[in-house]
């Protein structure tokens, strides 16, 4: 990793607490940029890629789905940098190798990429859906590589019907932290919550590609983003005072992702939250720590945040950047009541994601009062956050009577794809309106 980007950690917070105050909130912004601001060309970065294509029977109804998936996978293969280790898997009731036939990973070159694309065009759809078995095969393939960026793309069009949720959970538990997997649902017959769970466990993104025609561009973007990663296995190491309690650690940009449960104890009073691989990009995290109230004037380090690359067992972690989350008690209300705008912004957007997901679930369950109330709240929050993409999607599900108060009516007829898009993208966030535009391109966000 000779071309490792420069990482910076920035803390946004109001450190002042009122007398007796305990809750400390901070937004931790982690940014990695190449020196000079140019995109890194991590040609030397070791990387491996596994592309997983659903070839269950439903992929041929209509046949355009399979053909689009094959075309998308072929573009993804083309996008691979020469030298990257790769493989293509097809999945139905079980997983099987598409390329290379015999298993293992192959070094990308014009010849091997060509062979992979030819193998892809021979794919036929039949059988069921057992996503866990597909991921297990991917995991076995990654076993052969030591370190480097390990990334998978998973495309499916259906529910995970041919294995139990427990089987899937067991595979996710095993694969978590071993590779990053971006998930895509094509069509409208797949389960948003299920795919979101897989993506969350494997630190990847989830999205809907309702129209198979959109797959090619999407696969290309995903593969390019993966090729842009230069540091694998970054973690946020959070130290807290002995008497404090870490309430939560959430990714809030580019999407809301609760990392609290992913904590791995790493040092005295410190835990690591895996963040996956990084390229030239920036992500924001919301940290909340509960501290014992202190005397007026006392200053406390409520959290010590370090961006680390955890070393092998027995090895010291490599610290890329650090930041302090502070708490200081004051009797000056002007200081203690000020809410940091970024904390407020991301708190609102986290609530927005929850409001949408709860509202859509209530709607599905036939609880229209709750659905109306939650989606109405979502309209207000999306507007406050300036999250226009979500506002536009919400308006396909509800008729907005008064955006200020969140008075809405559920639409009687909603396209399944629109509802699923809203659900899937409910956790996508936007930056604070006042934030300057990003100076670094973020490959994952195109």
């Amino acid at each position, binding site marked *: 990793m000779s071309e490792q980007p420069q990482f910076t950690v920035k803390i946004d917070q109001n450190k002042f607490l009122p007398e007796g105050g305990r809750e400390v909130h901070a937004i931790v912004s982690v940014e990695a940029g190449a020196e000079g601001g140019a995109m890194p060309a991590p040609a030397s970065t070791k990387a491996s890629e596994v592309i997983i294509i659903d070839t269950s029977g439903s992929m041929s109804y209509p046949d355009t789905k399979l053909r689009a998936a094959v075309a998308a996978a072929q573009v993804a293969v083309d996008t691979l940098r020469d030298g990257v280790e790769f493989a293509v898997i097809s999945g139905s009731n079980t997983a099987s190798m598409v390329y290379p036939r015999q298993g293992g990973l192959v070094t990308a070159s014009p010849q091997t990429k060509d062979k992979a694309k030819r193998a892809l065009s021979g794919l036929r759809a039949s059988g069921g859906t057992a996503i866990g078995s597909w991921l297990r095969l991917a995991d076995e393939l990654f076993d052969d590589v030591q370190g480097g960026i390990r990334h998978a793309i998973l495309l499916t069009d259906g529910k995970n019907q041919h294995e139990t949720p427990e089987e899937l959970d067991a595979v996710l538990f095993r694969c978590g932290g071993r590779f990053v997997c971006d998930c895509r649902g094509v069509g409208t017959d797949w389960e948003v919550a299920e795919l979101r769970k897989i993506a969350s466990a494997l630190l990847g993104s989830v999205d809907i590609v309702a129209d198979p025609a959109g797959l090619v561009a999407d696969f290309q973007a995903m593969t390019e983003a993966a090729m842009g990663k230069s540091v694998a296995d970054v973690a946020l190491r959070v*130290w*807290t*005072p*002995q*008497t*404090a309690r870490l309430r939560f650690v959430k990714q809030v940009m580019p999407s809301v992702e609760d990392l609290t449960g992913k904590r791995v104890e790493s040092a005295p*009073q410190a835990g690591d939250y895996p963040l996956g691989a990084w390229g030239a990009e920036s992500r924001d995290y919301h940290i909340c720590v509960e*501290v*014992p*109230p*202190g*005397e*007026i*004037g*006392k*200053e*406390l*380090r*409520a959290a*010590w945040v370090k961006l680390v690359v955890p070393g092998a067992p027995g090895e010291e972690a490599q610290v890329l950047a650090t930041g*302090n989350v502070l708490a*200081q008690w*004051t*009797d*000056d209300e002007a200081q203690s009541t000020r809410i940091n705008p970024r904390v407020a912004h991301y708190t609102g957007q986290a609530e927005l994601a929850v409001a949408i997901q709860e509202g859509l679930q209530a709607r599905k369950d036939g609880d229209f009062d709750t659905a109306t109330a939650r989606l109405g709240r979502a309209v207000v929050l999306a507007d406050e956050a300036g999250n226009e993409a979500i506002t536009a999607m919400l308006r396909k599900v509800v008729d907005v009577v008064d955006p200020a108060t969140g008075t809405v009516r559920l639409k009687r007829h909603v396209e399944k794809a629109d509802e699923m898009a809203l659900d899937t993208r409910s956790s996508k966030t936007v930056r604070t309106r006042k934030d300057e535009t990003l100076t670094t391109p973020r490959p994952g966000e195109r």
Partner: protein
Amino acid sequence: MTGGQHGADDHRADDQGAGHADPDGAKAAEPSCPSCGETVYPGEVFCEECGHRLAGAPPPEPVESAAPGGAGAAPAPAGDPCRGCGGTPIDADGYCETCGMRQPAERDHVEVELPAPGGGNGSGPVAAAGASDRGRRYSRNEDALALAAHAAGVAAVVCDGVGSSQRPEDASRTAADTGAAELVALLGAGEDPEDATRTAALRAASAVAALSTSPGDAPSCTYVSAVTRGGSVTVGWIGDSRAYWLSADGAVDPGEDGTGEGGDEEPATDGSGPETAELSTGDMAELGPSRRLTEDDSWAAFMIAQGALTEAEAEEHPNAHVITAWLGADAGQVSPHVATFRPAGPGTLLVCSDGLWNYFPAARDLAALLAAGPAAPGPDEPAAATASDAANGAGGTATDPAPGPVPDPGHDPAADPLGVARTLVRHALDAGGRDNITVAVIPIPAPRSPHSSIHESIPHSTEQPR
């Protein structure tokens, strides 16, 4: 900023001499840490090298446990360095790696003693003393204090960093150190005290102005100096830090009723305000009853002088603390006010920042505090334990090595100026401690006797920088 922290804020003497004159004989013998052998200094509770609790060091418990600052922190196991929880280690940023508490900076509470000539190592008389404290509201101490002996008396400088400027703590430190050093040099060169006072203030102003690194960056502070020579006292100031005369006989100037101006007698600072800068050095005002010696360069003082507001109204006003003159790159032309007095009897020359006088603006109030002597140690009494820890600040004189005793009642400033300074600081803390508090105390003997007590080889001492 808790009482407990103050209590534990021993002023570390280990950086003794860092950038400061350290006269022969002023330094106490250097014992070493029984654990690691590193040199330790009187009053240190823990070895700076290894954190070992030093034998004979005053146990911090009485003060620390009484302090509300300990809320939520685990009881401190002996031998561990965190002032809050006893945890270890403290990281490079100054936070405890167990409880996260930011450790008090050395400057948070500082005490200084200037030994009288001939009595250099702790047991002898003290020519002047001072104490400076972060207070209870601010996270750092932006005041600075310097005491120095010159060839024929004492010089004291107190500076208060301007909170709205950048790095105010650097400004005040620079100004106090420069001012004291210049006073000593100028007086030593035979300059008249008023000229020396004015020149030293201007040089301090230049030094502070030089701290600026860009037009938007102008570290700033106030400045007040006091020098004694022979039977006279000369004060000089810019901003709202003050000097007071507190007569030993307890008489208070009638104008000093806490509501009005300096009274009808304003002999030396006649006309108050900027004109005093051009004061002639001819007539020395005689100092009788207790009174303030300086006139603030402040919005409040201006409004009062204009007759627009009463003192009480002005102090209530949000602008009360806006100063109209300061040291700093953005200060424009600096014109120090200078005034000279001749005490008629013994008394105390008090030099302080507004952290003290905000609570006790009138000379009468301050005189009453002195007369009352040290108050009974309160629950968050910071001074007692701090005393011995910090007393050996710069002069190296550990006057008070026993743990936590309070100076004898019925304060005699001449006998225990540090005790007086401490007491005044503690009163300001007890009153709320909203600002940094700095007090310098210079006992003034009865006229005629001073000459006998002034000799040549005089120690020089200032507060230690961080």
